């Protein structure tokens, strides 16, 4: 879980449009900048050549909030939503869930965005412990880091997990990301790769197709 096929270290999502939002909580978190790198988003200037415009329709809120993302709604002069993300997150079966961090319009970004961060998660299962919550992505726009937004997103995901009777939260971090590792460990996280020797394995599409079509056995 978590690791992605040949991912480059970072992509910058383009946020759809300015919307009304609310006041920021401001308690400094020096680890926030490094936190975002834990999802594999190292150098923002690098790109896979994919530019995903993620448009989240958000109702105006009076107070700083981490809100559930809503399906994109048509807004005048804005690009179309991403159909895959839309279907997979808001269709008949939710393959992921998302919280967004939004700010009041007077705190909007230089480009006019008020959705400034997100946390993407889903539910998984452990045959030992039962329900788990998995934090797949955690991201805050660079100009909004150091304000505790990343920490708050993570706390909200923890809260969702507890409300749904999850006994653990899991996530993946790259081994070079020492600041993020230090932060997560300060929150009580345990490195299962280091302590229990668990390695993440993957079959990519071609490998899966060969398995699906090929004969069983050696």
């Amino acid at each position, binding site marked *: *879980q978590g*690791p992605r*096929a040949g991912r480059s270290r970072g*992509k910058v999502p383009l946020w759809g449009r300015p919307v009304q939002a609310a006041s920021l*909580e401001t*308690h400094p978190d020096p680890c926030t900048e490094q936190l975002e790198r834990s999802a594999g988003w190292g150098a923002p200037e690098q790109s*896979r050549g994919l530019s*995903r415009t993620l448009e989240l329709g958000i109702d105006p809120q009076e107070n700083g909030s981490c809100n559930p993302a809503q399906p994109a709604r048509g807004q005048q002069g804005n690009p179309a939503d991403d159909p895959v993300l839309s279907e*997979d997150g808001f269709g008949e079966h939710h*393959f*992921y869930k998302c919280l967004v961090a939004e700010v009041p319009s007077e705190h909007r970004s230089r480009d006019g965005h008020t959705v400034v961060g997100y946390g993407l998660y*889903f*539910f*998984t*299962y*452990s*045959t*030992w412990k*039962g*329900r788990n919550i998995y934090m*797949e992505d955690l991201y805050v726009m660079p100009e909004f880091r150091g304000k505790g937004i990343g*920490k*708050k997103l993570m*706390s*909200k995901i*923890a*809260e969702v997990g*507890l409300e749904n009777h999850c*006994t*653990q*939260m*899991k*996530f*993946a*971090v*790259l*081994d070079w990301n020492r600041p993020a590792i230090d932060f*997560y460990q300060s*929150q*009580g*996280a*345990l490195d*299962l*790769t280091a302590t229990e020797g*668990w*390695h*993440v*394995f*993957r*079959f*990519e*599409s071609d*490998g*899966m*197709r*060969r*398995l*699906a079509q090929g004969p*069983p056995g*050696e």
Partner: protein
Amino acid sequence: MAPFHIRPARPEDCADLLRLIKELAKYEDMEDQVVLTEKDLLEDGFGEHPFYHCLVAEVPKEHWTPEGYSIVGFAMYYFTYDPWIGKLLYLEDFFVMNEFRGFGIGSEILKKLSQVAVKCRCSSMHFLVAEWNEPSIRFYKRRGASDLSSEEGWRLFKIDKEYLMKMATEDRNYSSQP
């Protein structure tokens, strides 16, 4: 080769699922870590919102174990998500009883799982393997799997419930400050 067939698990299989889960945990020297019950498996796998799916390997009566078990292997999986590439199939547990290995049961289960993944338009299949588990590592690598922890440096982390509660509570304390 012992005849067998692979099928989706049914609610009445939960006792066998738990038995095999414990056997796998014992193989990994973690038997005392299994706190899940049959009731949990039933609610979480066959309720209104399944948290997991299972395939089981069943053998005919003439090949039942001495204790009378017909279910001799299982795989538990669910769907996860990568915002860059979409749906993934995540293989949580995969086990064949010791005395039934070498007959192609594991390979057939993996083949069926791959068919599910392709049918559900999953971009890839992910799973964990303990670094000391050389037979399993060889099994998967022979079939084209990559070790992302070794190759890309990914580490899996967990946060247990007591720390989740602390995190959630601290957040509320911050929120209440002026």
